[in-house]
């Protein structure tokens, strides 16, 4: 199993680490029993993500995908950000080993939950749709391997 240089670069120097005080949306996904947990906090201005930070407990891929998803989402409209797929996240990193694709699901799910959290708090309808990583029966390796 090999990580690309870009994965290692984001793992070694992750962007947007931390917690935003007084955030507009919060998304926490994952489960310590399967290893990886991610929390996103974000600020919204004019339906755009104006600031975003993450905290992640997890492997190299979990940290790198968290880092890059925050970079990708920053400045996007909410409806754009919610469309980011795990494949786009992986592609942006130059690819991920198959057994590590589930880590990128965690990153996109964290983002989706944070966006819906913002919308619902403001009396609006959620737009993200179902998320998969917190489902106890979710087995990422089944589909990838």
């Amino acid at each position: 199993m090999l990580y690309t240089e870009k994965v290692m670069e984001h793992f070694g120097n992750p962007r947007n680490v931390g917690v935003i005080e007084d955030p507009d949306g919060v998304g926490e996904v994952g489960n310590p029993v399967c290893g990886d947990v991610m929390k996103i906090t974000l600020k919204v201005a004019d339906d755009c993500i104006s600031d975003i930070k993450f905290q992640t407990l997890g492997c190299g891929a979990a940290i790198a995908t968290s880092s890059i998803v925050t970079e990708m989402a920053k400045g996007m409209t909410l409806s754009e950000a919610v469309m980011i797929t795990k494949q786009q996240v992986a592609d942006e990193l130059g690819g991920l080993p198959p057994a590590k694709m589930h880590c990128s699901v965690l990153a996109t799910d964290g983002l989706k939950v944070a966006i819906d959290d913002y919308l619902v708090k403001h009396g609006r309808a959620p737009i993200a749709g179902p998320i998969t990583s917190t489902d106890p029966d979710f087995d990422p390796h089944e589909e990838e391997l």
Partner: protein
Amino acid sequence: MDHTVYLDHAATTPTDPRVVEAMLPFFTERFGNANSLYALGRDAASALEDARERVARAIGAARADEAVFTSGGTESDNAALIGLATAGGRNRGHLIVSSFEHHAILAPAEWLGKHGFQVSEVAPRTDGVVHPEDLASAMRDDTVLVSVMHGNNEIGTLMPVAELAKVAHDRGALFHTDAAQTAGKVPFDVEALGVDAASFSGHKIYGPKGTGALYLRRGVRMAPYLMGGGQESKRRSGTSNVAGAVGFATALELMLAEQADEMPRLTALRDHAIDAVLARVPYARVNAAEARDRLPHIVNFTIPGAEGEAMLLHLDAAGIAVSTGSACSSGSLKPSHVLLAIGCPVELAHGSLRISLGRSTTQDDIDYFIDRLVPVVERLRSMNPLYDKTVAAL
């Protein structure tokens, strides 16, 4: 990389130059097939039999032909489990393996379970030891074979093999032990332990990869695992790897010659590492710490709130090689079956880190490792959204 600290000797070791030197003639000048009748073949055969005698002596075997050369631990484990269970055409019966064996035992046990045999697992207790009483209560009248490892490769605990073998024998079953991590490092004598079969691996003891042996007590029947030209008294066909056999025998003898000096040295370094990690990494613990009988070179830490693969990668960036039992590094969703078997909670198993010391290891290596580990753990914990909850629950 300007600085390399190799702390993964349980994974593999570099081949000792003295071993390489002993092997070299068998690649070029003394290359004969040990089955050939002419002089070149006889020369290879006599080197092979000399290596066999040296291995037999090193493991306390009564006769040289009790040592079968194999390609290493995995083959020896597979051959013993399947070959002993199915000897004489047997296709049913009960086997017992411990639940924290290497996969080279667990996988063939599972295979036998799908091919007519019944398989039970006996669990180690939280001290990382398989207790004879627990084996005794798993034994049945139809138990034909028991396999419990001599020393565990992830946590370094040693099993009371002589007592376990006696439990198996009292109920008429054969006893196999996987000694891949132990032979050469702690005393290992097949007669004193009373085992019927035992597995050995060359590359764990500064021998070449793809070498090793299976000890098979005289009179114990085994269905051959590799069939063909009938080498190794029909127990393992295939043109003999004379260079490998010579390399394995040399490596094992060197381990024994140096054991009395090297093992106390490694034990002291290991204990220094334990003291320093426990003192400098908050909440760190040693897995199966209460076991008194342990390998000198292996220690497994749990670092709550930091994920194993992430620690491994940061340490790698600092030139340090270690291993982890975290799920994400295994390619499956499950963390180490060894840590789970000794009752380590899943969340904590994700934060495990194994270091294993060897000939190259110095006190400077250990100190460098700890100096790098401390900031790595701090950094990962500071990024962990659940860290406060995790430590509050400890």
